[in-house]
């Protein structure tokens, strides 16, 4: 049996790993000159910046993502963040633990969860927390912006509850030694030893369909047959490659989430720990991390690498960037810092191909074509949701 994987992002590589273990002959086609998609390092001025991700695995060594790495035999060392998170609020830094939230809020939360279970009325996360204390409200906003790049107004509460449960179960984030790229390199090593072939600079131009099944793909004008096709490029682009009107109209309304990441060089530590620092006093920036606290080799000697993240709220990206830069200036005060890169994400290179909580699953109108990656996540933050989604999709094939 032959499988073709379109795209070498996390979803594509995980799928290739599972399929090759099942005995499939797997070929991956990647359009770009490097593997890993939005989860790998690109070096810039000696700093290990990234294509997308903030070098963080949402549940560190304990979550489904790390579980998948272990299952496939990919050897990655993950430093679990300690503390998991702090919050900068009214100029003071607090460690975020369950005690950080007023007892009244905790009780109100339990009551809201209960009501949601009984009445099953769909509410947004913001509706839910709007009656809470100011710290909890601001923290909720920062958490959504940092972890999901969305506003709490756009997050259905029932889906957030699942993420909340996962955080309780698997705890907070971790940083892979070597950054995102260490994950990609070790996955590729495993895949190659399983006989998987990866072709870089080979964009898939078309998915060849025949009624309700797919026959293969077209790459560089050549027809390549396969028994199954796994697409790691999201539903919208996949639908486009099939040219199926039905599929295209079905996925027409999927909205990606947008975001802006600013990578900053500092000489003195700013965050000072391996976790996330949520920023509650800012206009746009939701939080930041300092990955060199876990792995000093992610920056040249004498420097720390700070990365900030913010969701995009208006349609004017330049305006959003300016607000982010203003926040940064305020946060840094009279410290010395240098901006390395400002990266914005939207459209077909977004933070998430489908906004958190709006995922539509891995199925397509074609029996032997599935979509993986952040265009078809299961509940879970970012790459954790991708890992869970891949398992579901591969069970189905």
């Amino acid at each position, binding site marked *: 049996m032959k499988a073709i994987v379109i795209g070498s992002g996390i979803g594509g590589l995980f799928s290739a790993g599972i399929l090759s273990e099942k005995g499939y002959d797997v070929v991956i086609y990647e*359009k*770009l*000159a*490097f593997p890993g998609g939005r989860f790998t390092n*690109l*070096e*810039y001025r000696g700093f290990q*910046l990234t*294509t*997308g991700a903030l070098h963080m695995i949402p549940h560190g060594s304990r979550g489904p993502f790390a579980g998948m790495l272990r299952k496939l035999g990919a050897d990655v060392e993950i430093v679990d963040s300690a503390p998991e998170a702090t919050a900068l609020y009214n100029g003071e830094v607090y460690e975020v633990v369950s005690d950080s939230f007023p007892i009244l809020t905790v009780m109100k939360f339990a009551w809201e969860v209960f009501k949601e279970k009984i009445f099953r009325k769909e509410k947004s996360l913001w509706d839910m927390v709007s009656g809470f204390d100011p710290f909890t409200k601001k923290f909720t906003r920062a958490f959504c912006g940092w972890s999901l790049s969305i506003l709490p107004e756009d997050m259905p509460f029932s889906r957030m509850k699942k993420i909340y449960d996962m955080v309780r179960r698997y705890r907070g984030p971790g940083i892979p030694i070597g950054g995102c790229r260490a994950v990609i390199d070790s996955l590729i090593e495993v895949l190659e030893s399983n006989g998987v072939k990866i072709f870089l*600079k080979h964009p898939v131009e078309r998915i060849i369909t025949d009624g309700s099944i797919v026959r293969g793909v077209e790459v560089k004008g050549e027809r390549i047959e396969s028994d199954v096709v796994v697409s790691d490029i999201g539903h919208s682009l996949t639908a486009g490659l099939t040219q199926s009107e039905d599929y295209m109209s079905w996925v027409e309304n999927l909205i990606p989430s947008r975001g802006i990441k600013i990578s900053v060089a500092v000489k003195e530590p700013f965050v000072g720990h391996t976790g996330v620092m949520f920023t509650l006093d800012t206009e746009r920036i939701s939080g930041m991390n300092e990955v060199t606290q876990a792995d000093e080799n992610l920056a040249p000697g004498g420097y720390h690498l700070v990365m900030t993240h913010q969701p995009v709220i208006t349609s004017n*990206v*330049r305006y959003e*960037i300016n607000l982010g830069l203003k926040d940064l200036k305020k946060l840094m005060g009279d410290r010395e810092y240098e901006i390395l*890169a*400002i*990266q*914005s*994400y*939207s*459209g*077909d*290179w977004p933070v998430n191909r489908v906004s958190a909580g709006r995922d539509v699953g891995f199925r397509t109108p074609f029996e032997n074509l599935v979509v993986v990656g952040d265009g078809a996540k299961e509940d879970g933050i970012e790459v954790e949701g991708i890992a869970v989604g891949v398992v579901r999709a591969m069970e189905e094939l």
Partner: protein
Amino acid sequence: MLYITESCVGCAQCMFACRKGAIEVEGKAIIDNDVCSECMRCRDYCPLDAIRIVSE
């Protein structure tokens, strides 16, 4: 001469790829064609096919 199309979202991967330092990005990429050597490495890093070449 290189130019950037409307599909650029500003992910800056071309800036990281460029060995001449000819690209700056803030919301969108800008290429300094006086510095650019047309090696086309940037195009291999662009996820959105937003970099085009035109002969003068």
